[in-house]
């Protein structure tokens, strides 16, 4: 079981992702709707894995990711996004994300990615 922080400005997405990861036996330790909340929760809750939306109001997911990595170089982050930006995956991986996942994703695909990331 992995302790996971879910970050997305959409309540629908936060809840969908939470349900998916819980169906795989993982625990959602926190849900954040913007970058500032995400960083606070990361420092307080010490999740083993973060599922982070790229497109957030205010501080973008990419900035949040960099700050998380700066705070904790061992942070495991899966970046997720529905953006059409074709460079987004490359930028996310360069910024320290372990994997990039396109929205919407299937439960089984997300659970496989979680397993892969936790083996890294």
């Amino acid at each position, binding site marked *: 079981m992995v302790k996971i922080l879910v970050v997305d*400005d*959409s*309540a*629908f*997405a*936060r*809840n*969908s992702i*939470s*349900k998916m990861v*819980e169906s795989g036996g993982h*625990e*959602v*330790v*926190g*849900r*954040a*709707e913007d970058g500032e*909340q995400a960083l*606070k*929760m990361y420092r*307080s*809750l010490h999740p083993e894995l973060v599922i982070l939306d790229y*497109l*957030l*109001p205010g501080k973008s997911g990419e900035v949040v990711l960099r700050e998380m990595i700066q705070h904790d170089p061992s942070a495991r982050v899966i970046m997720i*996004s*529905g*953006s*059409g*930006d*074709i*460079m*987004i995956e490359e930028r996310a991986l360069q910024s320290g994300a372990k994997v990039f996942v396109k*929205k*919407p*994703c*299937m439960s089984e695909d997300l659970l496989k990615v979680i397993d892969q990331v936790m083996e890294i």
Partner: protein
Amino acid sequence: MIANQLSLTRKQINSFDRFLVDGTSKALNAFETMFALNIDSSDSTIEIATGDNSEILKHLGSGTLYVVSSAMEGDMQGSILLLLRSGDFKYLGEVVRPVLSLIYLSSPDTDLATLDSQKPDWTQDDDTRHTTDEAFHEQMMDLLAEIGNVLFGLYTRAMYKICFLNTHHSVPEALRDPDQQIIQQVLSSTEVADQLHLVIENEFVVMKRTIKLWCLISPTQGSFQNMLNKIEWLYDYQDQGRFKPVQNYVAT
């Protein structure tokens, strides 16, 4: 074809068809994935038109619209809107209500009790309010914004495939628009009176009932011209063998 009046070339028309097929097929798949639904059938149409001459936009009627709005950024600038009529929004709610109920069911965040008592309500589950109509409406607006987020991404990515212009959208905002002011603002904010827009009408049948979604893509004049130019030179490099034109292309 009125396309000739716009001097769209065959390459450009074919590319817009390809854009429609690519974007819409992925949009339907996304819809099925998000809501675990089977879409019985679907149809889609694209129109390149000015705001005044658009036949598709007339289908919106004059009633309340539910709108998701984003700015287009990157290689193309402008606006992108997702539009639903009030009746379609209501039916969409009926269709997805069972899924929303499941998704918004409370789940125990047992480890957060201490944090909760310390103060931040960012650890709360989002979903303790789903029983009232007001709360359901709020969930639907949030859901609509996420649908817009996914569809805008799919359409801008499909756009990239026909013109190699890398475009993305800003954080989408979902709004109820009783007077259709948002679409009027977008149509009237263009630099020139005959500014062209891409208007997409998606019609799909779910549980024997039709839902229509419109997408209005309004690049700036410079971005639109740039897109047409890029399509011209890129077209010859596309794998046309894989391209299957849609039946009901309309260009006005």
